[in-house]
């Protein structure tokens, strides 16, 4: 177990270096930089800009700047944001919590609804409820995230039942602890619905397929033959086995959610990692972009790792040393 963990963590290193170098290259290719927009500001002297440029290492060759950045990043310093003049890590720290809360809330809602619905739909195969829920799932899968976000925002505007932006209210700091929690929940509802809708639909369909496949397995026939009740067969034998692939899926789902969250954050005006990244990209704030990509990839890889670990806990048949080779 420990060895497996170590190997996976070591494997992540070249991947992260590759990803960050690619991003560095890309941002460097972008025409203009942050300073060309600063130069248009008459209240900032050219000397001050030249000074700033020096401190950010501009003018040096690409690889030198990349390795300087990498060396600092290894030491836990992701550099300064040129636009905000604040440490990148501080900025990301403020935002990443909101994104994580949203992604995890969406994950919980997705799973809490998709698994029971998938079971119901599989059991009632061919009946009206199956057809109706499957059609609904299909619609949910096809509805674009951002469009659903617009519809819900309009709903919130018209009814006034939900806040229309931000992760917390203006007076958040003055609320009591329970008030803070409620305020956050209130702001979370709409984005969570948006993110959970698409994930839920595909998960439900997969669950249905997995259960129907298992219904024909030999061990299920054995369980039925020895006289177990239909409920015991379903919950103790079919469902436990059907769940395994979904545990891995949850890890990848977290990655998708982080990506999806980025778009929903910008549309719904939430202060998260995605909207921060978008602002950084638009301002060509190179270290902020690099930091966001690094943290985003790290979250993605850690999510996948957690998923694999959870899988071994739930399914003792899976041998980690073998599984990591073949996959």
């Amino acid at each position: 177990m420990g060895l497996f963990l170590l190997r996976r963590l070591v494997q992540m290193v070249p991947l992260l270096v590759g990803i960050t170098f690619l991003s560095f290259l890309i941002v460097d290719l972008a025409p203009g930089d942050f300073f060309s927009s600063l130069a248009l500001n008459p209240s900032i002297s050219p000397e001050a800009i030249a000074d700033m440029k020096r401190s950010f290492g501009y003018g040096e060759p690409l690889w030198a700047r990349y390795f300087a950045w990498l060396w600092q990043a290894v030491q836990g310093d992701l550099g300064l944001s040129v636009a905000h003049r604040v440490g990148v890590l501080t900025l990301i720290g403020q935002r990443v919590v909101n994104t994580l809360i949203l992604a995890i809330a969406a994950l919980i809602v997705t799973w809490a609804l998709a698994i029971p619905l998938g079971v119901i739909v599989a059991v009632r195969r061919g009946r009206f409820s199956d057809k109706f829920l499957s059609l609904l799932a299909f619609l949910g899968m096809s509805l674009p995230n951002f469009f659903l976000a617009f519809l819900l925002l309009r709903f919130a505007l018209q009814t006034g039942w939900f806040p229309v932006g931000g992760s917390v209210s203006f007076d958040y700091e003055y609320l009591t602890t329970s008030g803070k929690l409620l305020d956050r929940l209130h702001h979370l509802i709409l984005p969570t619905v948006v993110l959970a809708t698409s994930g839920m639909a595909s998960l439900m369909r997969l669950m249905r397929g997995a259960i129907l496949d298992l219904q024909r397995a030999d061990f299920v026939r054995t369980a039925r033959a020895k006289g177990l009740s239909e409920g015991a067969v379903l919950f103790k034998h079919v469902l436990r086995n059907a769940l395994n692939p979904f545990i891995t899926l949850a890890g990848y789902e977290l990655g998708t959610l982080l990506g999806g969250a980025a778009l929903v954050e910008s549309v719904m005006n939430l202060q998260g990692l995605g909207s921060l990244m978008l602002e950084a990209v638009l301002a060509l704030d190179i270290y902020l972009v690099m930091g966001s990509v690094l943290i985003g990839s790290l979250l993605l890889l850690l999510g996948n790792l957690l998923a694999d670990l959870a899988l071994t806990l739930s399914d003792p048949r899976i041998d980690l040393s073998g599984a990591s080779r073949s996959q």
Partner: protein
Amino acid sequence: MIEPGGGIEGELLSTTGRPSRRWRWRAGLSGFVLLFLYATAALAPWIAPYQPGEQFRRSPNAPPMRLHVAAPSAWLAQGVLFVHPQRMVDSLRRRYEIDTTARVPLRFFARGHLLATADPKEHFFVLGSDALGRDLFSRLVYGARISLSVGVVGVLISLGVGTLVGVVAGYVGGRTDDVLMRLCEVMMALPAFYFLLALAAVIPPGLSSAQTFALIVVLMSFIRWAGFARVIRGMAASIRELEYVQAAQALGAGRARTIVRHVVPATLGYTIVAATLAIPGFILGESALSLLGLGIQEPSTSWGSLLKDANNLANLDKYPWILAPGVCIAVTTMAFNFLGDQLRDRLDPRAETRS
């Protein structure tokens, strides 16, 4: 809950009998809808009553006008359809009043358009207008050209690259396979949307709209080919061991010929299904980028760039008709999903989705 036996017999029938007939009408309807949408895009200059950039400065943010059918006795003299003119009563709040006493008659095939006002000085907005008084319906029809071709071109590129890499990796195997698959893994480990954002920022300003379009498609294909490559590699590796491929090799067919004539055709079933199901992803990707202001720019329009107007709470509140492009995106996505699902049942029996 489950009748013992009943489920099993049903399964046997569905696997040994004819392909499932489930959702046939939905797939047919989807095909029809898609045909209709693509035809609209192709015939845009004829179907749209106005040019996408044509401004009616006196009618900004005008609400959609309802089409009325005239009494049959007036059909010959005035035309079948008419709208009531709208007058702006409050230019600050963009409030319009409908003048139900007056009529603006519409003519089919007038001035080279499917439907246009009989009097060229009048105008009509079926889906309302934007802040510059441009007809949303016309912009939607022209925008379909970009939005609908993004998916097709993107899928051609990414599946082309994916098939090439996958088939070579799977068929050749060994070191080549290792290197190519590691590359795919790096691509798949990228946080796709963040990366796409970073890539889109590289698009230099001042490109022609055709160049921007090409760049966006290439960027999205660049992010997506790896997934296809992995699946096709698996298929190619198993196809390589089949008798007919071995027979071809024994008959002296070269590597390239075997791949093109025997391995690639065997993956076509998957490819067609994957292509149909991947098109919505490209359409959504383009829309998302354009929506955030990183994709298609003025003066070209796509459904995503039209939705940019909705990314503003005041607009969303007062002018709900600007959500129309979103409806188009949703309908297209749905149609491709239904069609792909049906195609999978027909062409790719290995990927079983039980009915």
